[in-house]
């Protein structure tokens, strides 16, 4: 079997991802439409939360991607630091804006949800707070990529930032827990407690989560391709200027 590292070759990656991407994108689109339409039109209201429960189909999947996007960047950074495959560094770079957007979506939907449920847009609840901190990490990571001109230098710096940042993100999570007891409990939603209550909510939620994962993958592939091409173009232009 061919080694998985072959796909770390930029050309090979471009070829493979070109083949996969249309399918992935179509799948993501279908899943997204099915999940959201199902959730929005064909689920009943919760007896306590009324129609706001429909927000869950955006809120939870985006929160999921926001966290796991960072995790993916961490893994990609490690691969870059250890094996120095350019594609993985560029994939991390490509994922950052997606993760940041997902964080914003989770924050926004959460805030909008919080207004009717908790009577406030924002509370300094541990989970919310650590999400805000995660957003700051995304911002810093993106800003550092943008500020450094040389590509390899930027890749090295951001990778190390990602490592250190991950450690501190976990630290903050625990610190915040110590600091304030929260409002945000999954249990506030009826389905969350008694597992069998609500396949009505649960199934469309699953579809939405799958859709967001697919969308994330498709976007990462697409943006990684773009980054690869941008990188190659910079290299070609530089070479052209030299002669």
């Amino acid at each position, binding site marked *: 079997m061919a080694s998985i590292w072959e796909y770390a070759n930029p050309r090979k990656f471009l070829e493979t991802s070109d083949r996969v991407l249309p399918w992935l994108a179509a799948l993501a689109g279908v899943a997204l439409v099915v999940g959201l339409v199902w959730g929005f039109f064909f689920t009943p209201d919760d007896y306590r939360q009324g129609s706001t429960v429909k927000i869950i189909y955006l809120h939870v999947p985006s929160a999921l991607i926001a966290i796991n996007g960072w995790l993916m960047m961490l893994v990609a950074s490690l691969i870059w630091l250890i094996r120095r495959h350019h594609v993985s560094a560029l994939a991390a770079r490509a994922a950052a804006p997606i993760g940041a957007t997902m964080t914003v979506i989770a924050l926004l939907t959460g805030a909008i949800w919080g207004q009717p449920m908790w009577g406030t847009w924002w509370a300094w609840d541990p989970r919310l707070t650590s999400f805000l*901190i995660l957003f*700051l*990490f995304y*911002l*810093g990571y993106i*800003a*550092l990529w943008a*500020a*450094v001109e040389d590509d390899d*230098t930027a890749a*090295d*710096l951001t990778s*190390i*930032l990602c*490592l*250190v*940042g991950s450690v*501190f*993100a976990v*630290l*903050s999570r*625990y*610190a*915040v827990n*110590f*600091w304030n007891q929260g409002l945000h409990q999954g249990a506030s939603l009826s389905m969350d407690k008694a597992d069998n209550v609500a396949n009505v909510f649960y199934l469309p939620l699953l579809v939405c989560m799958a859709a967001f994962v697919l969308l994330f993958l498709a976007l990462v592939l697409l943006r990684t391709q773009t980054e690869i091409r941008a990188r190659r173009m910079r290299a070609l232009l530089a070479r052209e200027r030299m002669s």
Partner: protein
Amino acid sequence: MIALLMRDLRLAVRAGGGFGLGLAFFLIVVALVPFSVGPETALLARIAPGVLWLGALLACLLSLDRILALDWEDGSLDLLATAPIPLEGIVSVKALAHWITTALPLVIAAPVLGVLLSLPAQGYLWLIVSLLVGTPALSVIGTFGAALTVGIKRGGLLLSLLVLPLYVPVLIFGAEVARRGAEGQAVQVHLLLLGAITCGAMALLPFASAAVLRVNLR
């Protein structure tokens, strides 16, 4: 190493006061708080420990770019990197110099400023202790940030952006210790955690800083 420390301290004194300026900034930020939130004593007393911690943190932050950028600009950093000292040692010494010149004066000044904000009497001890335990972490983390942004012209703001989220745990525990101290609650657990963060940061971050610096120098 000692030569480097002595040089950095001397430069801080000569350069129109590394000592004085962090302190002055701290003083002014704290002094501006009553102007911005209004002068009621009860309110001020309530937010005093937090404001003092935040002020100290910002004063530290502002002086971070002096840690490495000056040496970068005039080429000293290139020369230090080829000197017979490991880069890890260099960044540690730099962090130490930053702590001595910036954080230590803040710790000493904090009680005085506490008076301005009507900090309750029992709060002073724990304020000082929490600052003493927490500020070394600020210097070490800050040195990491400075190493990350050293090649970037006027990276001061970027530096702040990168470093502040890293400061969050330190700030939470530090301010919590000071606040609990002021309110007469138990502080041991939080103080212990603060100490653990500081020790961890001092033990591990110099390696990250040196690695980042090596990347930036090439």
